[in-house]
């Protein structure tokens, strides 16, 4: 099958979606003429015109507010918040308005809104442009959260997000835009709430998100040579979360490591550990370990960012060895 980069898969998905549905329009900072900070909307303004691909002022609240309003009146906005770090600027629009309106008004309105944003450290973006704060949004009912890890998934999940009648926060790992992978032509969807087992194994389960899926897979491949069989689960969407796949994998291995680039406290992995403790305690054979960013702001120093902040293969391995001490 043909190979596309993650970025190309995003552009292609947006392009196909806009062709299929004239009600779709894009709104965001620098997404038009410039083609997006990460070129993920490249060429779309030229193709669809300024009415359907709009550069916005630098106001996240305005972008999201306009998105919510237009979604309510029947168009299909796909708005872009350049970095997930800026989401707190429009937190009220997201968590108090978009997430709750359908509920509070007794289902009288639908909000088919897609919010695309980017996350992740590794480009020297420092504390304001490199965070991975996806776990924060899990706290609020009413928001679907997508964390794609492959070009195939990003395209299929984006179509599902667009089809959804509710607000979807679609988080793209900015360090993955150049990752290549097989992507089918045309339209296809990847369902929400269906985790995928990227690698089968019986000794330890690793649940990883976004780019960490690939680091986990590298570790799994390396450790396979030592006779250690790691199962790598990629949840793909945090909400809805496919608890069953995670729990079933855990029941098999009894040992769990969660790898996630978010800060350590209140991490996505904390929720997974809690689910296991609540629903599969009798299977726990070893401490459940999280490999995460430390509980500090993303450092600007490239050395600190790379060696100390972003979870790496070495730390994942260490965690796997640690849980294996209990077998």
């Amino acid at each position: 099958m043909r190979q596309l980069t993650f970025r190309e898969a995003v552009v292609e998905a947006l392009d196909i979606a806009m062709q299929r549905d004239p009600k779709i329009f894009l709104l965001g900072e620098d997404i038009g003429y410039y083609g997006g900070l990460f070129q993920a909307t490249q060429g779309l303004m030229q193709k669809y015109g300024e009415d359907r691909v709009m550069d916005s002022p630098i106001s996240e609240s305005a972008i999201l507010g306009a998105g919510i309003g237009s979604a309510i009146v029947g168009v299909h906005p796909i708005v872009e918040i350049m970095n997930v770090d800026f989401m707190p600027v429009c937190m009220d629009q997201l968590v108090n308005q978009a997430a709750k309106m359908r509920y509070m008004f007794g289902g009288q309105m639908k909000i088919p809104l897609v919010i695309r944003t980017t996350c992740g450290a590794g480009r020297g973006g420092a504390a304001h442009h490199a965070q991975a704060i996806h776990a924060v949004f899990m706290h609020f009912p009413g928001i679907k959260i997508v964390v794609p890890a492959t070009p195939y998934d990003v395209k299929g999940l984006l179509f599902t997000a667009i089809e959804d009648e509710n607000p979807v926060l679609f988080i793209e790992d900015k360090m993955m835009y150049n990752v290549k992978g097989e992507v089918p032509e045309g339209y296809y969807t990847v369902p929400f709430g269906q985790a995928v087992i990227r690698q089968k194994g019986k000794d330890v389960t690793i649940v990883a998100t976004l780019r960490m899926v690939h680091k986990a897979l590298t570790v799994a491949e390396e450790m396979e040579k030592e006779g250690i069989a790691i199962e790598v689960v990629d949840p793909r969407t945090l909400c809805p979360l496919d608890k069953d796949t995670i729990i079933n994998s855990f029941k098999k291995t009894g040992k769990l490591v969660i790898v996630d680039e978010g800060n350590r406290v209140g991490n996505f992995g904390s929720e997974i550990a809690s689910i296991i403790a609540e629903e599969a305690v009798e299977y726990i054979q070893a401490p459940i370990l999280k490999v995460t960013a430390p509980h500090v702001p993303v450092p600007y120093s490239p050395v600190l960012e790379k060696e100390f902040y972003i979870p790496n293969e070495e730390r994942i391995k260490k965690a796997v060895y640690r849980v294996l001490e209990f077998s």
Partner: protein
Amino acid sequence: MAVEVVLPALGLTVEKGTILKWLKREGDIVTKGESLFEVETEKVTTEVESPASGILKKILIPEGIEVPILTVVAVITKQGESLPDKYDMMGIQKPQKKEEPVQIHIQEASFSMSSGPGEIKALPAARWLAKEEGVSLSLIKGSGPGRSILLKDVKSFLAKEAQRGPKILITPTARKLADKKGIPFTSIQGTGISGRVVKADVLEAEARFKLAETRPVPTSVKPSGLSKYKLGQIVPMSSIRKVIAKRMAQSKFTAPHVYFFNDVNMEKLLALREDVVTDLEEKEGIRISINDFFIKAVALSLKEYPILNSMVSGEEIRILPEINVGLAVAMENGLIVPAIPKADQLGLVEIARYRSDLVERAREARLTIEETERGTFTISSLAQFDITFFTAILNPPQSGILTVGKVEERPVVRGGQVMIQRMVRQGLSVDHRIIDGAVAAQFLQSLKKKLENPYSSFFSIC
């Protein structure tokens, strides 16, 4: 390899059994699980299955002989394998036991799971399986980090157990009932066919279990050591007792204690109290007690000697920022120490209010964790009992505890004359690691001075 056939542990209280009949003869081929012999105990007659397949090479205990459980009664060898020498001379005269001491097995068959596995470290999966199988974790050796018990440890223990003893036979109804009642069915004496555990056995075990439990706690507030226990009774520790036991041992074996005593002349203090107590009761609705004066005096003395208001933390001495005086309160089932916060800053009436509320709620077991953990120093009084003086163990992590004996009239020499005075002997235990004798003595002296001169200690005239 030769396999030993032992007389299995057949129930909770069974210690001995008589082999009624050998169902196989020496030299017979036996298969694992096949009945080998009939055994009779005080409670039941049952068949015992062969633990292995092979040749029943030698019967060591003939029919009609009573032997303790776990005695080796026969040896099974493989085809063509000769009997190991050590069994040659073995027989009725000196029945050999398996290496494991008998007590352990009796313990295993007890209801020890019901009182919780205590300090044993076990992974949840291991704990779960052990509970399901009714195995006490205390019998299992942990092979994980920090000697924690892993799932595989429980599994291999169970596998070994399965090899050793006869399989427990239990009807599905009985099993369900035992599960529901939380009674490990491995410990139930079966009376059904081939010793099968039936529903009636479970109900009987439950009744016995209930009898053995501590009687329900009466709601009376007066603590008493009387009539709660029976001779020969085995009482599982309550959770509060476990905490007390752990803390007392920790304190006594970590902090070297040193003790000081002096006598306090209570005349002035008692006179002062008698003067004000009725008035205050009418005005404030609270009855001031001698304890309240002690609390206040201790708080003021702690302010002068903050080292007594401290704790040891690693290689640091932490002088605590607040003076929270704890009062040991005896309860039906133990002791608890709620503390009066910032007692140095409170008036006597406020202290009395706090004290009366905390003591009342302590006896109703309605204290908050905060109230029992904030103490920085403790007072323990046995004044209401006929106790002249006593020593106390520090309430960790505190560094000082004051004991108060009864008030009694004693002959006292003053100015060359013998007078009768009401006296109290107070004692101080301190953590000698950080508090020197001279400091402790000064503190006790300061306390005595305050109590003996209550007007200047407790009332500021301005």
